[in-house]
């Protein structure tokens, strides 16, 4: 059995940043295990720009952003195994993995960082009636075909769901010569960033149809068309609004789900709202020495925030390995009045740094007062012109404020519309 101080599961942006931070903080033996044949994770296929504006102050493409980290990582003594799939994490942090050059690997780790990312919600979860024709795929799968494999997955396209990947793919397919007929969104608002609606749809005259869904697919072999319909306030199709749109491809961008099957087998607690893990301010999970960061923890819109979060996890793991991580009395966080969730879910009162609370709202809110309260006391109050479910927000709590909170305090992040 191999012995490492830290094993990082996943070599995407989260895993790389966590490993690098732990290395910087003095952890000596680090192993990164990555399923794909290169480091970089999903960034390798995200060839559009917009990455790194916060973190590097530059507008990078996904592969460029990833390369900043992978190049730095390969200059260290961090061990990397690509093409390696983790099969199991045991109760005592023994990681079992497999590849076609070492065979089965077992690694005993003092600490583990979970950075497996997320997966796309597939068609089956939507129960769209109709045929099983080819040409129905998630936007991410289509993105891989176009950007990595170099093949067109369709010529005439309807996209269901206005998540960022769907919007990005609408532009990508258009630039490569396909006709994108419509982007349909079940909700009355888009799930993607506003800037992507402007530069991916409006720039190319692609209609965004809100409160609209695909109710039926047609075509026996390759997809031949879809029937779309408007939905009412209960999200049910409205009879009489059906419209047939001929197309050979239906792309789905209907949500991302943290990939936590390994976490479950490792016995780590999950948050039922995020489908991610329950963590503290250093992203330590419910299990001692097991940390998590990136989309496995909560689905992010910006990789820059993933990097920030992952550095916290790396730093936390380093502190844990040195036996210096603060432990003891914690306060919990909770979202109310439109705030769907808050990460981290618990904070050590004796923490050594300011803590950012990340959260999302459940619907579009305008002229909002955002507050963080503890009992009767308002710790933070801030005005916001607009908040949307598609954009992750944060507020910063000072360490000096946290320190003074009563034991077992509950911090409430809440909104109020004017």
């Amino acid at each position, binding site marked *: 059995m191999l012995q490492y101080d830290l094993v990082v599961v996943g070599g995407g942006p989260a895993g790389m940043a966590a490993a690098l931070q732990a290395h910087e903080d003095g952890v000596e033996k680090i192993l990164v295990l990555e399923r794909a044949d290169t480091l970089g994770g999903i960034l390798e296929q995200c060839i559009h720009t917009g990455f790194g504006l916060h973190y590097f102050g530059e507008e990078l493409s996904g592969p*460029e952003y990833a390369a900043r980290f992978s190049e730095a990582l390969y200059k260290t003594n961090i061990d990397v195994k690509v093409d390696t799939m983790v099969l199991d994490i045991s109760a005592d942090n023994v990681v079992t993995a497999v590849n076609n050059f070492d065979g089965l690997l077992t690694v005993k780790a003092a600490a583990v960082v979970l950075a497996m990312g997320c997966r796309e919600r597939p068609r089956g979860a939507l129960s769209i009636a109709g045929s099983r024709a080819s040409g129905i795929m998630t936007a991410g799968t289509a993105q891989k075909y176009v950007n990595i494999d170099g093949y067109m997955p369709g010529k005439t396209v309807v996209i269901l769901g206005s998540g960022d990947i769907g919007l990005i793919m609408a532009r990508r397919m258009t*630039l490569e010569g396909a006709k994108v007929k419509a982007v349909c969104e079940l909700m009355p608002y888009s799930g993607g960033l506003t800037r992507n609606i402007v530069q991916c749809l409006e720039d190319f005259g692609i209609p965004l149809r809100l409160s609209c869904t695909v109710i039926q697919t047609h075509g026996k072999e390759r997809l031949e068309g879809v029937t779309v319909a408007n939905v009412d306030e209960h999200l049910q199709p409205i009879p009489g609004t059906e419209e047939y749109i001929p197309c050979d491809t239906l792309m789905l961008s209907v949500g991302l789900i943290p990939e936590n099957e390994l976490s479950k087998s490792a016995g780590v607690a999950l948050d039922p709202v995020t489908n991610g893990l329950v963590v503290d301010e250093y992203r330590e999970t419910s299990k001692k020495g097991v940390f998590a960061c990136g989309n496995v923890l909560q689905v992010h819109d910006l990789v820059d925030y993933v990097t920030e979060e992952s550095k916290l996890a790396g730093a936390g793991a380093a502190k844990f390995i040195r036996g210096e991580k603060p432990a003891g009395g914690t306060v919990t966080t909770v979202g109310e009045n439109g705030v769907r969730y808050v990460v981290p879910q618990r904070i050590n009162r004796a923490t050594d740094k300011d803590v950012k609370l990340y959260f999302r709202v459940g619907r579009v809110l305008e002229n909002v007062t955002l507050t963080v309260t503890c009992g009767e006391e308002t710790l933070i109050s801030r005005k916001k012109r607009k908040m949307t479910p598609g954009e992750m927000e944060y507020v910063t709590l000072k360490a000096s404020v946290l320190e003074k909170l009563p034991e077992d305090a509950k911090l409430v992040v809440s909104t109020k519309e004017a």
Partner: protein
Amino acid sequence: MKTKELICVSCPIGCAVTVTLDDNNEVVSVTGNTCKRGDSYARQECTHPERMLTSTVKVIGSRLPVVPVKSAKPVPKELLLDCMQEINRVTVQAPVHIGDVVLANILNTGVDIVATNNA
């Protein structure tokens, strides 16, 4: 005087920006932006809009069939599809490194198309 509402696309925050123009369509003021980029984006967008362009080009001798590329700077928005035609004609030989120019001065815009991954 008239005003125009824009969403800044400079970064993923997507600020709602209000531009005030005079009768000659000259920008008088920009408000609502939260950084300098927003100001310059708004002025640019009202006079001659530009966009970053990303795509792939064919690569020979690599384990991958295509390598991703971007415009080193934004190109005029109305030239996006014309630029694609030029990019589609390019074939590069591996090895390719991040930052390598695969097509210089595309359509005389003064903008280079550069590789964004190694191949």
